[in-house]
Structures are given as C-alpha cells and as structure tokens.
C-alpha cells in the first residue's frame, strides 16, 4: 500500500528509534502535523521558539547518546534553527534538523516563507538534503541518521518541500546504505600505535588530556584502564568533563583558560601529552607556541582533519578512541610515575581551586558546592554560557559521561534552559539541574512555558549578578573596568516563573542555599531558584587571552569586596 510523504517521514523516524522530537509547526509543515497523530509512538514537544527546539534536541542527544530530532517550518522557522544547528556542529552532537519548505514548483521563486536553508546551513551541517520526491524519502532518512550518528557525529538537515509530504510512494525502509564517499575510520594505524606505546613506556612525566571524543566513543572505561595501568594523570577539556570520574585520584580537572592551576602546570611540564578525542581549541591551548612546550604529542582522534590542524602531533592516530585505547592498553607497560604524581599533588596544594575568598556576599562557588552536596554528583548539570558555566565546570564534580552538558565550541548564551529540557526528556530518571546566568536565561526564557505544558521537571539555579558577567570580567581585567553594555536588568524571575505556574525562591544568604536546593529537589516539577550572587565576583584561575597557559591569574588573595549590589528591577 502506498503512503504519503508525511507518513513515510513518520515511519522513518520510528524505524530509527525516534520516540521524541522537538518542533514548531507552520504552513509548510501542515501535512506532517496532520499526519503525526497517526503515530502515537512519537512524542512531539512544542517549544516556544525554534532555537529552543534545536537546543533541546542537542541536550537530549548529549544526555542519551541518541540522535536528537528537531523540526521547524520553512523560512523564519528554519532560520531560527541556525544557531542550534551551529552549536551541535561545533560540539559534534548527533542531530537531525527537519525543515519545511515551500512546494517544489515554488522553489526559487522567492515564495512566501521560502528560504534557501540548505545553502544557509552548508558550513554548519555535516551533510544536508533537499528531499525532492517521495520515493527517495526513506533512503534519505536512512542515510541522514547514519551520517548524523556515525564517525564524528554532527547535525544533518533534511529540507522537506510541502508537496513531497502529500505525494504518495511505496514505503520500504532500505537495509543497506549507499555511501561510497563516506569513510568512518575505526582502528588506528598499527605502526603509529607502536610508536605511541613506545613513547608512553619511555615517558617520565606523561599526561592525558581527554575530550568529548571519549564520551562520544563510549570509551570512559578504556580511558580509565589505560590511565590506571600506566598511572598517567588525566586532565580534561570543558566538554570532556565526566569522561573520567571526577573523584578519581588521577583526575586533575579541567585545563585551559579557566582550568585549574595544577592542570595548566602539568601541561607546562609534561614530557608526553596524550590527547584523546579533543581538538586543541584555543580556549584549551592558550598561546599555541607555548602550549605543552616540553612535550611530545600523541593525538588520537576520529577525524583526520583535526590532526595537525592547530597543534602538530608527533604521533597521529586516526581511529575510534575506544578501539585505539583498547589496543594501546595491551601494548603499554604498567608504571607508577611516583615522582611526577607527587609533583602534581604538590601543585594541587599550591594552587587549590577551592581557594574561595571570604565574602559577606553569596558566592557562586559555594552554591555549586552545595548543589554537588545535595545531588551527590548524581545529577545531570546543564549550563548556559558565561561565568556561571565556568563555576559549574570548576566546582561541580561529575562522575559519569553525559552528566555535564554545556555549549563549548559555539559558546551559545541561551543554550541552557532548552538543553536542560531536552536532557530531562531524554533521562527522566535523572535529576537535571540547569545552572544558568541571568543574561543567558533571558535569551531563551520563553521555554519555561514548554516545561509547564509538557511537565518537564528541570530544576533551575540562576546565578544572578545583574551583569553579563563574563564580558564584564574581561572589561574589568583588560578594559580598565569600562563596563559598557554589561549591566543588565532582569525581571523578577520569581514573578516570571509564577506567571508560568513554576514555583521559585530567591536566595540572598549563604545559609539559605542548602534549604532552597532541598526544597527544589523535593518538589515534583520544575522549580526555579534565583540566587542573588556577589555582582562583581570573577572566575579564577584565568589565562589572559593570547597568553600562555602557565601565565594563569589566580584569585587575588585579599580582594576588596566591592559589595555594592546594583539596583536591578
């Protein structure tokens, strides 16, 4: 029996195991939405803005490891997805973005709500399709899902002209793929593996820097085995947080611009750097010419284009991180590296991350600690972008892969709330805490309504300092405190939450933090806490832009507390 294009799309989604999608309807998508109720297996979550749909699919994908699906109508709907698609592209998140398109005979005529979305998204998608006829829909979806989730994952866009959805065709979901131009490297080159093992066995001061590639590959166990066997200290990138247990004795935290002092000292002094599933982002390397200056570098990554792109490697290994680490583990000798680890421990004492200065005010670092205590590190923490993101990365200890979700490459303010929503939908069994800033939250605050309509119990901790804090921090440190366009007013978040029927609390004192968190956790549903933190608190340590990692600035020892809360109404 023949099916309509819209039915075929639903069948394809089900064949790919999709049980939830985030979307927003519109004229070009009417045939799809008309058909959707026939397929009760697919839960559709209506966001309040298409950007929210894209970030939600992103958060869902990161929390579950599955492909996230978002949908928007043609024209403005499609363009609203763009930031979310770019975000997923830069952080290698598997995503399918479905966009409505005007009917085929209107394409190229500048029809109402027509936009060339495949053209617009060309540089920010792993691949894209315009589905020009109903019979080829099934093969297109099969390919799109495979490309999105395999190899180095990424977003794939399928543009769906309206009349293709009403055309009829036989539905057969293809079993085989025809992608001769698509290669997924698996095992690393044996010679390079041998070279790498030799370097590891000879190294006196080896260091592992692990990134999101470890999480994507599901290689946390392999990483742990390798690190433990040869007793190699591990540092992570921002997106690598969680790929190695937070409390592990060999974990030295995040390195880079806001990394721990001891992680950056380890980078400076290591004689061998084993970079695993990471891409030497400039926020990690600092000044490239001074990055890990004494080290030979082994770079393991699935994407050959990442090898040698920013930092040349002595031993390049292209392959699946898990498979490579498994092989490597057999080739390396047990070791202890006692002197090196003692040195690192020494640095850990000299540069304690938790050196939080005395303050009468409410400090964000304390809040994150309380959050950790209350959840025992078992929550999924999702962040926006800014100071709060860095405090969360520094002070929340994540134990499992997928438990820290943040916008790394694109640094998208407004990512937090919709991504937390997606994470909670994907992992209803987990407590999901959004740690957001007052600036970041206001970019996508409309999604509070989605939380309510679909009963998504995200707990929200807003670190409210009345500033676009990270930009203000740069103005403070590098632009002579010329605070231009960074003081930001915000509404009374509790009243806003209340307007959406979400309960909330404002916290101004340190002793109120823990009870408020307990109350939020005990409540069955979304809950918002508005933490009025010290307005001019800065994130330390910090590597100044363009400086070497070793030049990190620490928290000034006796900071004069500028405890004048800005009046914010």
């Amino acid at each position: 029996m023949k099916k309509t294009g819209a039915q075929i799309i639903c069948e394809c989604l089900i064949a790919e195991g999709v049980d939830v999608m985030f979307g927003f309807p519109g004229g070009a998508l009417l045939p799809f939405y008309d058909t959707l109720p026939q397929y009760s297996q697919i839960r559709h979550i209506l966001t309040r803005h298409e950007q929210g749909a894209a970030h939600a699919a992103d958060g869902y994908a990161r929390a579950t490891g599955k492909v996230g699906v978002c949908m928007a109508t043609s024209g403005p709907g499609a363009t609203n997805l763009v930031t979310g698609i770019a975000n997923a592209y830069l952080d290698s998140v598997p995503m399918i973005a479905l966009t409505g398109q005007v009917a085929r005979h209107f394409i190229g005529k500048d029809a109402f709500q027509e936009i060339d979305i495949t053209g617009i998204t060309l540089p920010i998608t792993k691949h894209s399709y315009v589905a020009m006829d109903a019979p080829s829909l099934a093969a297109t979806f099969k390919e799109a899902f495979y490309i999105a989730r395999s190899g180095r994952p990424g977003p794939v866009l399928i543009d769906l002209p309206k009349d293709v959805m009403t055309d009829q065709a036989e539905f057969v979901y293809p079993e085989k793929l025809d992608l001769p131009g698509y290669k997924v490297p698996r095992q690393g080159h044996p010679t390079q593996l041998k070279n790498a093992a030799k370097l590891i066995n000879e190294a006196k001061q080896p260091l592992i820097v692990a990134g999101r590639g470890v999480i994507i590959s599901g290689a946390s166990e392999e990483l742990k085995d390798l690190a433990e066997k040869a007793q190699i200290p591990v540092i992570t990138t921002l997106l690598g947080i969680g790929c190695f247990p937070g409390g592990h004795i060999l974990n030295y935290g995040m390195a880079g611009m806001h990394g721990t002092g001891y992680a950056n000292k380890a980078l400076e002094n290591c004689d061998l750097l084993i970079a695993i599933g990471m891409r030497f982002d400039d926020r990690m390397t600092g000044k490239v010419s001074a990055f890990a200056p004494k080290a030979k570098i082994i770079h393991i990554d699935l994407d050959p284009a990442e090898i040698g792109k920013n930092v040349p490697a002595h031993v390049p290994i292209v392959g699946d991180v898990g498979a490579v680490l498994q092989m490597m583990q057999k080739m390396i000798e047990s070791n202890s590296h006692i002197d090196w680890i003692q040195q690192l421990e020494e640095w850990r004492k000299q540069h304690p991350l938790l050196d939080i200065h005395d303050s009468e005010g409410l400090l964000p670092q304390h809040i994150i600690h309380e959050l950790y205590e209350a959840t025992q590190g078992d929550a999924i923490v999702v962040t926006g972008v800014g100071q709060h993101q860095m405090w969360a990365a520094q002070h929340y200890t994540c134990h499992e892969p997928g438990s820290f979700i943040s916008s790394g490459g694109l640094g998208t303010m407004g990512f937090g709330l919709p991504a937390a929503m997606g994470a909670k939908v994907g992992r209803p069994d987990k407590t999901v805490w959004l740690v957001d800033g007052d600036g970041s939250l206001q970019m996508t605050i409309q999604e509070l309504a989605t939380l309510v309509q679909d009963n998504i119990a995200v707990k929200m901790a807003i670190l409210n300092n009345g500033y676009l804090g990270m930009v203000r921090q740069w103005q403070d440190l590098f632009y002579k405190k010329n605070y231009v366009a960074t003081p930001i007013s915000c509404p009374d978040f509790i009243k806003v939450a209340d307007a959406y029927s979400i309960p909330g609390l404002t916290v101004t004192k340190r002793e109120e933090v823990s009870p408020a968190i307990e109350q939020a956790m005990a409540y069955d549903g979304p809950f918002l806490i508005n933490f009025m933190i010290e307005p001019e608190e800065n994130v330390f340590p910090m590597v100044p832009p363009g400086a070497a990692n070793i030049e990190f600035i620490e928290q000034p020892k006796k900071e004069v507390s500028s405890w004048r809360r800005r009046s914010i109404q």
Partner: protein
Amino acid sequence: MATTKHTIVAIVHDRPGVLNRMVSLFRRRNFNIDSIAVGHSEVPHLSRVTVIVNGTTAMVEQVRKQLDKLIDVVKIFDITGEKLTSRELALIKVKATSSTRSEILEVADIFRANIVDVASDTLTIEITGDEDKIDSMLKLLQGFGVREIARTGRVAMVRGSLGVMRRVEKPLKTRVRKQS
C-alpha cells in the same frame, strides 16, 4: 612558510550542490582558488574536479582533509610533485586585419594552435597546453589586440598506468613541531 601551487584532484558524486559545498569550504578556510575544472569521469555519475590552489603544505593538507569529509567527495588526492600531464585549453579572439592576418596565423602555427573561427576582422584561436605555453602565446597576441579570452583552468593526470580510482592513500605524515 612558503606557498606553492597545489594540484588537487577530487572524484565527486554528480549531484546538485556538490560544487557549492566544495567551493564553500575553500571560502570558509580562507583559500584562494587559482582555477577549478569540472567534468565527467570514467565512472558514470561521478565527476572529476581539478582544483589549483596556492598555499603552504600544511594549509593545503588541511583543506584536502576537510574536503575529504564531504559526503559527496568519494576520493581526493593532492597530486602536487608527482609526474603529471596537465593541460589547459584557451579560446582567444584576436583582432585581425588583412595586413596582420598572416602574421597571426604564423604565431598560431608556432604554438600548434588551431583557428576555429574566422570573421571579417577577427580570428578565434584554440590552444591547448600548460599555462606557460598559453601565457606566452597570449603575450605575442597582445600586440594585435585581444578581444576576448576564455580559459578552462588546468586538468591534470598522473603519468603511468594506474588510474586515480585505484590509488591508495598515503598514510598521514608526521610533522614534528618546533620545540621552543
């Protein structure tokens, strides 16, 4: 680092938008394309793209790897430095009066070029060869007054019996970073 001209050959799916994806990548990575030539290959539904780019080895290697990641790119090689046969074709419309016509014909003859069109006051010459040959003939013709030039850009093929589809990719090179 010194920049050199690189010859990149890509075998790509013959689908709408493929060229757009490739060219967009060059723009995105800040590369200038010297020339690009596209046509059918020996395999049905696959096209062959020859791109000439100017850049350092590291930059060109990066762009080659990025191009290789495009789903529609089946194979891609940087064949710079190999023994190549490379050719370009040009059509040159040159002003010709009764007094200069025979001189132009002589120049064409020296370069083994063909006259493909004759009009009352012009001659159109077709020439095939490497860029140098075409450039030198153009230089000679400038004096007569060149009305129009159409050049194809370079196409290239590695000498010897092996077809590009049968080539095996070279393993990744190890580049040693400078220790400060």
